[in-house]
Each structure stands twice: as C-alpha cells, then as structure tokens.
C-alpha cells in the first residue's frame, strides 16, 4: 500500500491514470472533463473514459456521445465510453487470438453469463482496459469518470478480488500487472469530488478510509465543487445590515425605482447558504489527512454546461494546482 505524502497535488497531472469519483450529483463528470482539458492545455495527450456510459463527457466538449473507440473531442482530448463486452472482445483478439468476427451472438451470451456468474468480471474488464491503455502508452494521461463512490471500491478492488478467487487461467495471469499499475502512486491516483454539503462530505471521508483499507490505490486529492463565493467581509456585512433596515431599504427602493427587498433577500440567502456549507467544508478538512490536497472549485453561475464551462473548470483546477 502506498505511503501517505508521496504525491503532492501539482503532480496530479504527472500521473498516468486518474480515477475521478464522488457521490452522485456532485459534478464528478464536470471535474473529470475539466481535468482532461487542463492536461491537454498543458500539452498532454489525454484519454477521458466514461465508465457509466451516459454520454455526458462528450457533451461537455460539445461533441456527440462517443463509443468504445476513442474520438478526439477537443485538441488533445480523446473521449471513450466503457463497454465491457467490447473490452472482452478486444482482449480476446489481442491476447488469445480467438477469432470473434461474425460470431458475436454466442460470445455475447457467454459473456453475459460469465459476467453475471462471476462477480468482478465486469469490473476487471473495465479496469483491465484502462490499465492496458496506460501500459501501451497510447496516451500521456487516462482520466476516468469513474463510478460513484459507493461503487468505486468494488471496481478498484476487483483485480485483488479476482486474484483471491481465480487461482489459474489467463485472467489470473493478467491481474498481476494491473495491480502493479494501480498500486504505483507515481502512476495511478484517485480524486474524490464532493460538494460542501453534509452527505457528500461524510461519504468522502468514508471513502478515504475505505480506499486506504480495501484497495492498493492512492488517494491523490479531494476536489470540493460548487464552493459559493464569500459575499461579504465582516465590515461589509455590517453595512449590509444597515442597508436592510426598513427606512434605509425604503430610501434605496425609491432611488432605484422599485422594491429592492428581493435583491437584498437573495443576498441574505447567499450568505446563509455559504455559511451552512462552510461548516461542512471545515468538517471535511478536519477529517482528512493534513497532507491531503484539497482543491476548491467555485460555484458556476452558468446557463448550462458545455465546452465553455469545461474550460472554466480547467482554469480553476489549474489555479488550485498552482499552474
């Protein structure tokens, strides 16, 4: 297992394989896309792979959904969607020289069966494909839009689980080199994404423990997404309260030419939201190892998500990494 404190956050982009995970709905796909974009802007060839194929990664580059075969969606960024059956087919072709052209039907059935019967087969085919891309050096960096934190452990622990279950055979002989890549903190890292809210923070802290205890993969950084801006300094807040006094608010409304109460109320809401969230941010920082890099990503007040926001995310990540 990796010793803590080997990798600092700026070296995140020097890794070869980065798994981006997080509780559902915290924006891990956005962060994965932003990370890929940033690495590409730094001159790297990047493969970003979506494990739960929903077509979201490609859409963040304004591109139609990609399949198992990678396609360049932005300069230096190739996108693909994981397909375990295609992964098996590729594996059989490359390693076993088993001709599968034309006779996909029986294979698909056999695959379905084996994958259901033997837990971990789907996971190993996913992790195997990713590790294979790293080993073959087709790309400088492989960014994985990985399963949500509830599922990532099963994914990352699959090679070990297979090692324990399967004593001989080709899969067994393949898990050793995968484990080498996954366990090497200079090659592989895990990035946990969360938001400064109760459940995401709790789940991230739990994930850190489980990753350490149940996998050989190293946690590289925690990304806190959607951090609201600090609206006021203390002095500004005092002045804000003066403005909210009924007579002052009335004067302000007259000067602007309409009721400003909703505008002031919205600011109060923003302050409250920020405050509730900062409690969770503090809880996160207190619960993590002191040397764990924490990257804070600003809330994006955007109309929608696409190439433009992906570049914004890349810029913020770059700033947080000190680039």
């Amino acid at each position, binding site marked *: 297992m990796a010793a803590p404190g080997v990798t600092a956050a700026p070296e995140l982009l020097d890794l070869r394989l980065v798994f981006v995970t997080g*509780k*559902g*709905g*915290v924006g891990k*796909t956005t962060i994965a896309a932003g990370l890929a974009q940033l690495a590409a802007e730094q001159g790297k060839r990047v493969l970003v792979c979506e494990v739960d194929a929903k077509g979201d990664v490609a859409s963040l580059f304004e591109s139609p959904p990609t399949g198992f075969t990678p396609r360049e969606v932005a300069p230096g960024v190739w996108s693909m969607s994981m397909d375990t059956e295609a992964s098996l087919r590729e594996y*059989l072709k490359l390693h076993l020289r*088993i001709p599968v052209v034309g006779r996909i039907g029986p*294979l698909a*059935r*056999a695959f379905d*069966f*084996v994958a*259901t*019967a*033997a*837990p971990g087969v789907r996971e190993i085919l996913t992790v195997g494909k990713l590790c294979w891309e790293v080993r073959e050096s087709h790309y400088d960096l492989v960014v994985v839009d990985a*399963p*949500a934190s*509830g599922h990532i452990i*099963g994914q990352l*622990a699959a090679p070990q*689980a297979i090692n*324990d*279950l*399967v*004593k*001989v*055979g*080709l*899969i*067994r002989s393949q898990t050793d080199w995968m484990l080498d890549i996954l366990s090497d903190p200079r090659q592989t890292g895990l990035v946990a994404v969360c938001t400064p*809210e*109760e*459940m*995401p923070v*709790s789940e991230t802290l739990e994930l850190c423990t489980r990753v350490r205890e149940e996998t050989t993969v190293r946690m590289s950084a925690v990304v806190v997404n959607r951090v609201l801006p600090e*609206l006021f300094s203390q002095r*500004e807040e005092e*002045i*804000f309260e*003066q*403005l909210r006094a009924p007579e*002052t608010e009335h*004067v*302000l409304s007259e000067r*602007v030419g*309409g009721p400003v109460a*909703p*505008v002031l*109320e*919205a*600011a109060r*809401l*923003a302050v*409250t939201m920020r405050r*509730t969230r900062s409690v969770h941010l503090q809880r996160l920082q207190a619960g993590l190892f002191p040397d764990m890099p924490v990257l804070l990503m600003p809330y994006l*007040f*955007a109309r*929608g*998500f696409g190439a433009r926001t992906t570049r914004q995310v890349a810029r913020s990540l770059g700033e947080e990494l000190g680039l």
Partner: protein
Amino acid sequence: MTAARPGTAKTVGQLLAAKDIVIACGPGGVGKTTTAASLAATAVVEEGGRVLVLTVDPARRLADALGLKGIGNDEVRIPDEVFTDAAARPRGQLWAAMLDTKQSWDDLIRAHAPDEATREQILANPLYQNISGRFVQSHDYIAMERLYEIHCEGKYDLIVVDTPPTRNALDFLDAPQRMADFFSSRLLRWLIVPYRSRVVNMASRPFYQVADRILGTQFLADISEFFILFQSMYKGFVERAEAVTRLLSDRRTTFMVVSTLEATPVREAEFFSAELTARKLHLGAIVLNKVLPEYLCDPRTDKLAQSMKARAEELAEGLTDDPVVARRVVGEVAESFLNFGVVARREAEQQAELKGAPDVLVTVPFFDADIYDMAGLLQLGAQVWE
C-alpha cells in the same frame, strides 16, 4: 392492469393516504433518504397507523435523529418522545429499518435452502460471500426482496422505501426479473452439466474452451459447485422474484421520484419518470428538493438589480456610515442576485419540462440549515405533504 392509470391524488398527503407502499427513487445526492424519512414521520403525525421507513444508508445525523443508533436489519420503533421533543403528536407509530445486504442474503438462503448441509455449503462458499457482501448490484435485488418480505408480514399500513444508490436508477426495478432469468438461463444449465455428467456435447464445447482459458478450470468448477447448490433453491427463488415484480406493479404501490433541478439529476429524473410510465408503474409524485426561490426569476427585479449594479455609487450615498463600503455592498448584492437569477431561470425551465408526468409535482425550497432532527424532518415533510 390498473397501475398506470393516473390517480386522483392532488397532494403527496393524499397519495400516501391511498397507498401501501411508496418507493422513493431517483438520482443520488438529492436528499432521497431525508425525503423518505420525513414523509414517513409526517404520515405518522398526519394520518396515524403503523408506518415503516426502510432505508439503505442514512446519514449518521439523520439516523441519530430517528434514534436509529446501532440497528440492523430488524425494524425498530422510533420512540414517541422523539416526536414530542419536536413539539409534534404522533397519531401512530413510526418504525425504521436499515438494509443490511449481507444479512438479508443470509436470511434468504436460510429460508430457501432445502436442507442444513446445502445451507451451510452455500453460506461458506467464497463466491457466495463475494456476491452477497462485496458486489453492489446485489443490493438492488435484496432491497426489493426485503420490501416484499416485510409487506407480506402485513404489519404496516404504509411502507416508505428509500432505494439504494444504483449505477443506473432502473437496476433495482429489473433486479427481480434478472434474478429469475438468471436462474432459468440455459447457459447456467450448460455450465453445470459437464460437472454433473462429464459429457460435454458438441454444441457447448467451444464455450468451455473459451471459458477455461479465460477463467481457469478451477474457478469454473467453483462457480459450478455454487450454482449446483443454488439450483436446489431454483423454484423458490424464481417464484419469489416473480412475486416481487408483481408487488412493484400492484396498484397499492406508487413511485416517488426525488430530484433537484440541477442539470444531471433532473435529466436522470426525467428518464426515470419516462421509464416508470413505460413499464406501467405508477408515478405518484415528483419531489424537487433545494429549489431556489421564485423571486430570483422575476424580470422586474432583475432590471432593478442591473440598475443597482450600474449605479451603486450614487444609490449608496448617505445611506450608511461608510459610503465606500456601502457602494461595494450595493454592487455585490446586485451582482449576487443576477448570478443566482441565471441559475434560478435555468432551473425553472427544467421544472417546466417535468410538469404533467406525475399525479403530483412538489417543490421544496432551499432550507437555511441542514436537516438533522425530527423537527427538521417534520418541517420538510409539511412542505411536501400539502
């Protein structure tokens, strides 16, 4: 089938009063667990009766609020004091249970194994331990299985289910059928036959050659042993899985999709609603959490904010004891309104697209604080109920 017929419920309260089972589903991270717990608690206050909330993995603070410390698979009663401490009067009983996947699988094996020897062999099988303990897909089936079990005992007037987080929100709907298909699979028989008879027929030989080379003979033998053992429970399992599927489409069961209005969750919620309808399952309600206040979308206020931003200096003059800071504050307040307005309008548009699908569509505003006790749950519940 009557399940797909639109119901008459106008509010979530009416919906819950008319149903035996409410299944809260939807994307992760939208407050599904909290919503399920708050509705169950509110049902106890408003309707009475015995209400169970079956949850998967509640936040620890929420568990504390419900007095769920240290409970496992068994249902426990939430003491009435938890309600009275929150200044509420329970008219019935609130029960809660957490889903322990491993424990539920073991119980299932105990119930279905034909004899003690088979039971012990299965429980000790490393493959079984892997399936039941480690791999998340098995949550999906077991959650529905457990619901069926509890429903059949008939102890509750209302069961609110918080579905497990799944890769795909639909996995748990398909899980019972997948389980039945799996045990009826011809491939399963193929796999088991040679280890029984040692005669491999011509048709299946290539399959074994490939499987052997990939997985190794020993592992295949392990799998086979496991499934031969499981075969003894085949009939029970398939019948059970079919009964679970029937329960989901029963007219006493309704689904409640929980989401926020953020882009990804709302897309998943939309997809999920469409799938429920396509499967003739009853979509009772959509609950949208953490919705920004409507005044953020008001075009008139938006104009005022723009003007405030542009004329901050002149507007702030003489209003406070510090004109320099006041000018900055007026500008920032206006800017913040405009920023949140962008998000609120995006969300309002997404909400409009969801209308029409369910019997009831409810929005829940952003709460100032997190919900961590019964008072908070009931406050949220009151918002959703009417």
